[in-house]
């Protein structure tokens, strides 16, 4: 495949492309669904194909095919060139790529147990154990349990006309537990997910207490929790909510493509103090085995730790080859594609806030009446306004400096630049355990996020009754 990729790059040069890259990919995976005591749905998928991207006179063209014969690939290259040439008239912001030395290298996930060599029956048996222990621990109130397992093995060649040639071989494994509890007419659900760059050994390292049993207990506990009050409150974030804040509110705005188009609220703010001096935020794809990690991005650029905010000052953005060129800086390995069928776009990896000096009790203590938000689930942002929403699976009232009655799931909304400045305290405890998929430009890529416990002066809580 390497030779084929290089041939395609040579052919692109002959067609007057100022830049071209080729990604040839093969992937396979299995998934198993265990529900209500049965592993009755198992599946396997195989994908293969190529994505060819060309830059011709400032216009980008991209073509994909899932036929890997040379003839078809050359036709796709022709199509990409033709698409680029046909687009020139309306290109007011010409495409460009940073001129950087070519990268040659390999990335191989180090795993102990190749999921391809574990039988479906063995996988299913392990997943059923998680379900059984949860149901045994939580009792009759659990009315539906769903355990979902997935693994993927992806092999990819990335080559470009600058001479880059990278081979990536990545194995990811994930498992999630969703438990629904019922009492009377009240129905509550909780979800736990474990995912890593790992082989099947991940499942052997997971304790049911920290996974499926925890989901079952939380779902059951939520049955006695009350809806949150509505209004503005001082809030304390669990590390999972801090992770959502860091990813949604700040991270997407720090993606240089958004900054370049003028949509990001961070445009023109590099070097400015935009957050409390307590705040340092980092995106780091080099963390060993974390779900969002990689050694090379989808353009073949080596990954690196990027400091986005340091002690409250905006220090940098995440870059692709193109945005690095436009900003006159170096690419930092943040261009990622879901698979061969998509163009790489600027993305986060493992994004987190650095821990601070405080103990959790110190963070909660000054709050007379507020809300502790736990169990981050999802979030989103409108980057142009810096308006974000984060959803907590559960919470607790804070009364007179102490955690009070439990609360059901609730969302909070805020404005990024206000919230970052309103951060008053950060804990020394740190957790990054939110492996998931981030969506942007119609693509989902694996990411992780987290941070310390954080106190924010005031946020809008979407509760159910006026306070």
């Amino acid at each position, binding site marked *: 495949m390497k030779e084929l990729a290089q041939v395609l790059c040579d052919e692109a040069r002959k067609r007057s492309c100022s830049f071209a890259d080729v990604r040839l990919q093969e992937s396979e995976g299995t998934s198993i669904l265990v529900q209500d005591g049965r592993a009755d749905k*198992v599946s396997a*998928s195989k994908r*293969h194909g190529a994505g060819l991207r060309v830059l011709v006179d400032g*216009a980008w063209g991209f073509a994909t095919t899932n036929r890997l014969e040379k003839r078809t690939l050359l036709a796709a290259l022709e199509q990409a060139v033709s698409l680029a040439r046909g687009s020139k008239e309306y*290109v*007011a912001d010409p495409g460009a790529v940073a001129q950087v030395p070519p990268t040659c290298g390999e990335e191989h996930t180090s795993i102990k147990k190749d999921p391809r060599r574990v039988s479906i029956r063995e996988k299913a048996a392990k997943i059923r154990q998680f379900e059984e222990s949860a149901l045994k621990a939580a009792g009759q109130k659990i009315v539906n349990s769903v355990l979902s397992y997935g693994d993927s093995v992806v092999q990819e060649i990335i080559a470009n006309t600058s001479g880059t040639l990278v081979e990536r071989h990545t194995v990811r494994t994930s498992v999630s537990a969703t438990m629904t509890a019922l009492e009377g007419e009240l129905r509550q659900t909780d979800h736990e997910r474990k995912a890593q760059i790992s082989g099947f050994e991940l499942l052997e390292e997971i304790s049911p207490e920290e996974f499926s049993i925890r989901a079952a207990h939380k779902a059951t506990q939520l049955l006695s929790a009350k809806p949150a009050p509505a209004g503005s409150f001082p809030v304390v974030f669990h590390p999972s909510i801090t992770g959502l804040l860091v990813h949604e509110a700040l991270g997407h705005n720090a993606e240089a493509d958004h900054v370049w188009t003028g949509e990001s609220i961070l445009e023109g703010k590099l070097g400015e103090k935009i957050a409390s001096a307590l705040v340092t935020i980092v995106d780091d794809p080099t963390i060993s085995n974390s779900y969002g990690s990689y050694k090379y991005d989808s353009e073949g650029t080596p990954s690196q730790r990027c400091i986005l905010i340091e002690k409250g000052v905006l220090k940098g953005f995440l870059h692709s080859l193109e945005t690095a060129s436009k900003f006159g800086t170096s690419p930092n390995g943040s261009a990622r594609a879901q698979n061969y069928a998509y163009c790489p776009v600027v993305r986060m990896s493992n994004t987190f806030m650095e821990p601070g000096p405080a103990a959790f009790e110190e963070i909660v203590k000054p709050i007379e009446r507020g809300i502790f938000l736990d169990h981050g689930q999802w979030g989103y942002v*409108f980057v142009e306004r810096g308006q974000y929403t984060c959803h907590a699976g559960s919470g607790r009232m804070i009364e007179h400096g102490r955690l009070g009655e439990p609360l059901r799931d609730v969302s909070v909304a805020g404005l990024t630049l206000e919230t970052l400045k309103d951060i008053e305290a950060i804990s020394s405890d740190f957790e990054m355990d939110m492996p998931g998929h981030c969506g942007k430009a119609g693509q989902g890529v694996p990411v992780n996020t987290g941070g310390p416990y954080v106190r924010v002066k005031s946020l809008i809580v*979407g509760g159910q009754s006026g306070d």
Partner: protein
Amino acid sequence: MAKLLEMASLACEVAKSEGAEWVQVTASESLDIFVELAKSSLKAASAAAGQGLSIRAFVKGGLGSVSTEALNERACRKAAKEAAQMASAAEPDPDFVALPSPEDAEEVEGLFDDRIAGLPSEKLVEVAGRNIEGAESVFGEVILSGGVGLHSAHSALANSAGVRRERKSTFLGASTFAVVKQGSDVGSFYDFDYGRRLEDVALEELGAKATRQALTFLGARHPQTRRMALVLGPLASFGLLRTLAYSASAEGIQRKRSFLTDMRGKQIVSEHLTIIDDGFIPRGLYSGTYDGEGALRRRVKIIDKGVFADLLHNSYTAGKAGEPNNGHGTSGGGISATNLRPELGKMSAEDIIKDTEEGLYINMGGLGPNPASGDVSASVDFGFKIENGRLVFPVINAMVGGHIFEILKKIDAVSSDYREEPGNIMPTIRIQDVQVVGKG
């Protein structure tokens, strides 16, 4: 044309011969062309040619499924054998009854347009360019993103009960997102148009429309925290209707994880709301005589004057419940709503707003409940404060909270006029007395 059905039939036979008791095979080929806009410039033009084969095989109800992007006889035989083996490895599911049997009916008209399938990329580039020009004619410094695209597909379905079907489909559409700035003040909005036939879309005006709307969002303010009416504009109401329709999936209800579990036959919404799911609308976005499993679709009245009347079935859930399959299965075994057509009321959208003393008009989004509990805690991303029957200012950072049943029982008006996307009706809906959260 014949090759896909031949391939699907072959895979069906191979999986049967390898021990599968029931088999469903889908084979497809597709072409997507997309022209992307960013920073009011054409960003990239792309083309994706795809093909694939998906096999679902059942042994004692246990499901093994295999998908592959190779579409040749050897790959087809291999995938079919593997699917049968996986089905044997899956645990038996006694609730599985059968896959759909053949039923003959005429295909809905207008789902394929060879003019769209043959549209050159240059035409999409031109439409994208017109959107930029239109947006800039409204506001010179607009930041426009989005894209124009077409999808053309040919698929074949074969199952072991004798279903053999082929269909071709096309979609053409565009979406635009406009951002406008005046100093530190930012307004933004989105618009879209999709259709299956060339004459059903008007794509060149979307940039200008989104920009005009974005300008109305300048000067946003925080609303006060208090209870007030919500008026859901067409895009927001459509979001609510689709949420309700998806919650009516029999799978979630049978598994007891949906807030609609045990609510069938009960009044869950105000009597002003009736929602019909109709997959037979000619040229409809979600139309098709047969569902993804090859079952004949039925029209379903999901909500009838506020009563949760019927749920959406696929072959599995219908068999499990011992009820007729109303044809809402997807090829992967899921359940999906089709075109949604709420019954209309008597007041116009304009009159509903005029008749609202204090409220929040929601242009898009909002009200997505927790699928299990029905609790609502959602941001109003695009909305206006209503005072004395007029939209007075755009809001920022506002939320709504409550329980979905509590909220929906307070619907007191559905408009007589509506936005229509092929096959789908999007009226304006008013809900009284909802908790709005803002500052103060």
